[in-house]
């Protein structure tokens, strides 16, 4: 079960990492159409993984890392989603001005770093008790089945309850 959890987590994580890597590349080459396409794909595929992290993985880290650190990680998710949203809202035929491009690229690269760190945190949590791993794995599979869009998950989370109830 442990391996299943780790493998499933890493597969989702790698997809998210590739997505933001591609997004940064599109932004670097000032290709808004491709950036929008990648952003749409990230929004479609990343929701389950983000939901798993925010609802289950991060709360498990709270006793270890403390509130300040966890707040930062939730904030970095919001910043990552903001890049996706702004790109999806941008008129496809319109070029991105340099200032916006630089800002989006900066945020996308920051999300790449966040993804790397998050993967490292998970890999280092090698001592999660077996029963907890089983529960985590079940949650992860449930989120995969539901497969929400990232933006929908974020909206539902905000409307369902104030962030402070689950975020530290």
């Amino acid at each position, binding site marked *: 079960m442990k391996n299943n959890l780790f493998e499933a987590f890493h597969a989702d994580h790698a997809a998210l990492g590739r997505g933001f890597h591609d997004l940064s590349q599109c932004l670097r080459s000032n290709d808004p159409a491709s950036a929008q396409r990648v952003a749409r794909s990230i929004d479609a595929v990343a929701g389950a993984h983000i939901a798993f992290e925010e609802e289950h993985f991060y709360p498990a*880290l709270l006793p*270890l*890392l*403390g509130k*300040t*650190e966890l707040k*930062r*990680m939730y904030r970095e998710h919001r910043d990552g989603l903001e890049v996706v949203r702004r790109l999806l809202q941008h008129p496809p035929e319109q070029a991105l001005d340099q200032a916006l491009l630089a800002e989006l690229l900066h945020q996308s690269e920051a999300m790449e*770093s*966040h993804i*790397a*760190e998050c993967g*490292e*945190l998970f890999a*280092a*949590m*090698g001592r999660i008790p077996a029963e907890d791993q089983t529960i985590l794995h079940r949650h992860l599979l449930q989120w995969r089945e539901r497969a929400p869009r990232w933006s929908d998950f974020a909206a539902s989370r905000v409307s369902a309850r104030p962030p402070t109830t689950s975020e530290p």
Partner: protein
Amino acid sequence: MSTRAALPIVGQCEVLLPDAEHRRLSQLAQRILKHEPGLPLCEAFGRGVASGLDDGPALLFEDHSEITLFSCPEDETLQYRSLLLADDDDLVLIRTRRNLAFERYCCETLALGNAEVMVLPSDSTRPPLPLHGADHADTFRTIVNVARRQGRLTIIPYIGTESAWRLAGQIAAASGAQISMAAPPPTLTQRVNNKLWFARRVTEVLGHDARPPSYQASGPAAVAVRVAALARRTDRVVVKIPDSAGSAGNLVLESAAVRALPLHELQGQILGLLESLGWRSHFPLLVSVWDCAVLSSPSVQLWVPLLEEGLPVVEGLFDQIVRGDQSEFIGATPCDLPPPLCRRLATEATQLALLFQHLGYFGRCSFDAIISGTDVRSASLRWVECNGRWGGTSVPMTLANRLLGDWTRRSVMVVQRGGLKHRGWDLPAALDRLGPLVYRRGGDGTGAIVLTPGRLEEGCGLHLLLMGHTLPDVERLRSDVEAAFAGTASGVIREWRPFERTEKSPPGVGKFDSGKIEHNAGA
């Protein structure tokens, strides 16, 4: 192979790798280049610039300002190392106090030729030295005139940073001359000197066990988690700033102290300590096991020719003499590890260098390893760092090759001590004091050579190359040199005991007893 008289490349052991290994490393290089095609590129600096070396005039400089945490005022005295690699008609660019006595010493006593030293004015904004040289009209004009007159110029930078390459491009554009850079392209330079990038390459070339257990940490929480995890199974953990040089960016932590802290407190403490080193909150960091049972810290010195000009040349194996918790480099002696281990060091270093060569590397390169365990015959060998630049061992080694034809014709020792307190000696007085101990060209190839004068003159250390017929001769020479300075200290050095090898170290892999030096220096 392209060479110059002032930069002789002298191979010490021939490493033959099977054809299959050549193919494997070439294919590995292609995979890396597919992922990062910019590694070997230098076209952005103009068509007249490429990696290489020729025997025409050269411009040399040593600048540390773009290496994280490696730039400090004391380093400025090292800028004169470039003069040791220069020849007649070469130009040496510095940005430190000019020392005519040292220039005379290099020209007359060491007979290294009559290079022209150009001094840049001090600049409070401290731009990288090569950019400063390009912006300084008189300096730039002098360089361009030499390049134009000869139709070519070799640039020999301490490290092939983008600034160094930009200077090359500007000279090429202004002079129309062909500029050869004795350095790898800038992106590759940056990568090979990055400890994380190097660790990945070691794993690919030599396997997981060829490096200490180490992990990338991309953010504050990950650093704490990785440190805590490693602290559960080892006595010490090190956090390294990947793009710093030498020991400057190493934070060594006692695992017992780490284990006592909750993660969020550990995180705060680590970040605080890193900031006190000068770290600017840049991630990722490298978290690694810090070997405690270290028997030796060898370095393999190589010259990497252009791919079409031959295999990497192993020029020397040295024991690095280090001190303190961060393993600061304070000198080097020829490696006297058992021959099978030396052979393995040379072979594995050649494998790494061959990969780099396939990636477009050219020029000076060294690899640092750690030999650890209870006995040197059963010890483990792990590669910890690549120095894709000149350094504290390669400059004196090349100087010795230049003076002797082959450095192995004498026993040699490099002494590079800073942080001492003693009476300041200006160079002529120091040379007078040493008298017959001083190396002189035309003699028997033995004696003490002042590598740079700054620390000696400022009374804060020594920077010497010592050469003798045998190792005991060199030990005696070191002792005599120290006595010559310490014996006349007018109350400034109250006691300066000679360097000693620790009794616990096995023969040939000892360390200078830095504790005594530090204690006495502060007395």
